[in-house]
């Protein structure tokens, strides 16, 4: 056994804001490494959305007719929104695991910024979403996805989706911190995600749904975001949907951010 060297620990002198940013990056990096290393999480994040694209394009697609637009053009913007929402479940699972494995406890005894655990998690999920967005865009182009909205509008659509997903992920952070374990976190997340995803304009037109479902399906945030993204990508009218989607995002972070934060203060 070698002896410990006599070098004294060198602490960097930085402002507390820079330290907070550095801590968030450290935590986000750690989460992304885990994402790449756990095969199931990679499959969940990347392979599953590709399967959805192929499933709807080639299996269900023949049955779904959307007037005035090819189904693949209609589908891809919706799949992108759906994938980001499903990704938020990962936020809940990841935080629940950290909490119950005692890792957060170790972090609490370190001189790091306290908020870095939550912020790092939501930021790494944001980065994952950017990656998934690129992959699906490429897959989409390979199966005849042809957006006509122009590059600036395409980018705007992406930013809108990412913003919405980021804001919503704070709600799933709350679920992750409130659940007794990661399995429960996952089990609670899906009943929240499913109605928002499937009773929406993501895969089919709301006008094809029964009358009682339409008011919800039309006005719920996921439909609004999907309408906005689809309009921007395809170059069709977006109406008020972009502003409504942004309003939902702001509303989500204003309500869910403090909710997750106060839960974090209680449990960690």
């Amino acid at each position, binding site marked *: 056994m*070698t002896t410990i*060297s006599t070098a004294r620990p060198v602490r960097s002198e930085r402002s507390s804001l820079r330290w907070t940013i550095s801590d968030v990056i450290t935590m986000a990096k*750690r989460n992304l490494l885990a994402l790449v290393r756990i095969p199931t999480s990679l499959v969940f994040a990347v392979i599953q959305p590709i399967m959805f694209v192929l499933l709807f394009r080639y299996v269900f697609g023949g049955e779904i007719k959307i007037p005035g637009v090819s189904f693949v053009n209609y589908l891809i913007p919706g799949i992108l929104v759906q994938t980001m929402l499903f990704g938020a479940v990962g936020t809940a699972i990841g935080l629940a695991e950290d909490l119950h494995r005692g890792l957060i*406890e170790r972090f609490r*005894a370190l001189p790091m910024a306290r908020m870095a655990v939550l912020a790092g998690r939501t930021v790494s999920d944001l980065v994952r979403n950017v990656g998934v967005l690129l992959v699906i865009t490429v897959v989409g182009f390979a199966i005849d996805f042809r957006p006509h909205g122009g590059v600036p509008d395409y980018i705007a659509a992406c930013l809108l989706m990412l913003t919405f997903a980021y804001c919503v992920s704070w709600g799933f952070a709350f679920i992750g911190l409130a659940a007794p374990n990661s399995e429960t976190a996952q089990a609670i997340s899906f009943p929240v995600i499913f109605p928002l995803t499937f009773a929406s304009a993501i895969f089919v037109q709301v006008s094809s749904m029964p009358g009682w479902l339409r008011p919800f399906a039309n006005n719920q945030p996921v439909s609004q975001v999907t309408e906005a993204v689809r309009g921007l990508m395809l170059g069709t009218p977006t109406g008020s949907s972009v502003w409504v989607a942004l309003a939902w995002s702001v509303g989500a972070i204003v309500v869910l951010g403090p909710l997750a934060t106060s839960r974090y203060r209680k*449990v960690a």
Partner: protein
Amino acid sequence: MPEFAVEALNIVRTFKDGEVRALDDVTLHVPQSQVFGLLGPNGSGKTTMVRILSTILLPTSGTATVNGVDVVKHPDRIRRSIGLAGQYATVDENLTGAENLKMIGSLNHLEKSFVVPRSKELLDQFGLTHAANRTVKTYSGGMRRRLDLAAALVAKPPLLFLDEPTTGLDPQSRQDLWAIIEELVEEGTTVLLTTQYLEEADRLAKQLVVLDHGKIIAEGTSQQLKTRLGNTVLVLTFLNTADAKRGEELIRDISSQPANVDGTVVEFTVDRGPVAAADALRRIDAANITLSGLTIREPSLDDVFLNLTGHKAEDPAPSDDDVTATSQSRKASS
């Protein structure tokens, strides 16, 4: 440097709105540069004490300072001078050993130029160099525990909290960890060790506090604690339990304390071992009972514990077992 690494005065910590008193008026003085042992069974309040001193949990009442700094008023200053290795090796199993240390270094706000060589040094010291680039998922329990300890040491903290560091380890891994702890203390580190293993406390700790149900029931050096119980334990092994019972009745008066009978083994705590042994042998022989073994041994801390609490150290205390893990209503703020 203040005289005491840790000074805790009249610490009380309740859970579930006061229903459970996990710590009940505990006062500790931990001297610098030695191992201080916090001994007790599960649920006795050891972990709660460590969590308060490492700024994870606030005390309900009482005051505590770590190296002269108040744990409630300046938790951030304390976090820079402590290391914490937990009961459950809290390392990230999706990262490699080296990545774990780098992460902890960076969250300790240390320069990369320090953390990189320091991580190498620790991995080497703890025999993990060969596994440095493997994810922790592939590590054995002993390796995880060593990495956990290494992570606590990245910033070279003068004070180390070790919360049941060897629980669940095989004997060899335990010996290895003990050697590491002894080496750290030789180099000047102060260690606050909690354990439910009396052997461990006996081997490592210079001073001990015995906790039971959140209260201190004894303190002193392990030698002092043992002396409190008379000098020697006489262990008689009989051929069968009926003989053991009869034998125990025959020689009951050789000790002022009741015997500990476990199947065919009968143990007496006695003042003068050899004299009591000779006396016991004579009387058992006269009654025509055959012994299969007789040992005279120094009392272990197990004997002390049994004597102080009426139950064995490894038995969980009957109440408030998992309180610290489940009820965490009042947390420390940063």
